[in-house]
């Protein structure tokens, strides 16, 4: 899952070419993804992992890094 997310961010969303993304890197703060990219990421995650992401869950805690995204997705859906 992590690899898929990282590959998608690197290939489709990153504002410019980057070699690697750290699991704990601040995706928004370090400028890897912009706000449009965040919207695209949500659509990607929903399609790729067959989940529904509640807008309420789109928080810094859940989306700040690849690790936080995958932790969030691994939680049982309510």
């Amino acid at each position, binding site marked *: 899952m992590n690899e898929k997310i990282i590959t998608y961010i690197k290939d489709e969303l990153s*504002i*410019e070419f*980057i070699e690697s993304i750290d699991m704990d890197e*601040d*995706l*928004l*703060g*370090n*400028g890897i993804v*912009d*706000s*449009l990219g*965040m919207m695209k990421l949500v659509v990607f995650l929903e399609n790729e992992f067959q989940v529904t992401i509640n*807008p*309420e*869950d*789109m*928080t*810094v*805690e859940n*989306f*700040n890094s690849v690790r936080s995204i995958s932790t969030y997705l691994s939680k049982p859906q309510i």
Partner: protein
Amino acid sequence: MLYNITNLIEQSAVRYPEKDAFKCLDDSISYKALDSKADQLASYLLDKGLIRGDRVAIFMNRCLDTAVAFYGILKSGGAFVAIDPFLPLERILIILNDCGIEHIVTTPAQTRKIKLITQKAPFLKSIVGLSENLDVKTVSWEAIFSRTLDDYSPARILEHDLASILYTSGSTGMPKGIMHSHHSLLSLAKLEADLHNLDNSDIIGNFAPLHFDQSLFGYLSGPLVGATTVIFPDSYVKLPASLSALVAKENITIWFSVPLILIQVLLHGHIEKHDFSALRWIRFGGEVFPVKQLRQLMLKWPHAKFINSYGPSELARCTYYILEKPPETDDPIPLGTVWNNTEFKILDTDDQPVNNGEPGELVIRTATMMIGYWNRKELTEKSFFKIEMAPGYDHIYYRTGDLVYENEQKELMFLGRIDRQVKLRGYRIELDDIEAILLKNELITEAAVIVVKKDLEIRELEAVVCLADGAKINADDVIDFCKLFLPSYMVPQNITIMHKFPRTGTGKIDRNKIIELLETQTL
């Protein structure tokens, strides 16, 4: 006496030494600490040979140390150049070169990008704020903050000295630098504090980065009155659920942002769940607020006063319009009337004042006027409209490029641009700038960039290009090329490759026809 903007924190450091000047999540800095840390940074820059008027870059994501960088550079007598760390490397280098930057103030979070910059910018003399050593001299924040101030003597700063250069999209593929003096920024600080009856009990929500001049409200007017400015980190500004929770938690009293952030909070911020009773003012500006959503938001926050704020970066802000109640119709919200220390004219194409109620270009004379564009004497002259009052004494107005008319209530109403500048998500974009970049690619012979309406609310940048014979590139290649030179908000969302452009009778590219073709998807 207040005559330059470093006086703002010096004054508040005496009046409110222990009060929080700035806050960012769990970090905060008092006025006293901010004043002395700014002195420490200034003393370092002066030791490195900085001379009054030298430009120093601020290359930081939104964090508490931006306040130290801002005031430290100013105290040294330098002018700050806030650079968007999300810009592509090429554009950053153009800016550094254009205004002769020798020192960059940054944070460890930007290490990766700073490394790339230093490899290509041999003219840099030092980097402040990195712990890691690079080829160029670096000094950590810890080292700055442990400096003693025994040998430090503050710089002499006059009110007409250069305080900042703000880069914005230019129409030639080169960004242009708007110069502001201590005088214009101090005037802005006073006017905005006055507009909101700001006092030291206010808590200002700062959602804009330093390279966007909305941030000047929090960085200047806050310290003027001894209020607290809360800096919202990038991740919070982009995730409305977190943003709205933090605004409530921080008891923000004054909100100033682009409409987009307010709309996101309205749609996804779960407003009902939080207590926003502290909010006194909601101020928006930078682009048009769709009336439907504005009305919805006003109904949710009936206790707050809503105000539309308008002004190009060349003079920061100049008009305002207070909404007494939610708009009853979907008619556009007026730009309003000019604030204090400001006057205007509406001119026809011959620079003659229009008759009452007729449309024309808005020109503004104000205390917050820029000095001019850095290194662009001709462009500066072109942007001014001068009335000679007596030989050697002119009244100087700035030509906004905005087409307006005055309604029966004597309020200014916005009609559009007289040139090809557009506003998308609050960003000011010259379409010619993007076309100039596209044409830098040898495989592209012609380019037209247009704004396409996807639906009522979404407008996107699209480009149509003609390729050189035998050129083997596709749309994705063109987008990648744009990303090398343009900030992400200026990169077209879609590229359409055409063999031949539709032309008008006079042989010009028929942009309206192209828009029509793209909107109806008949290409």
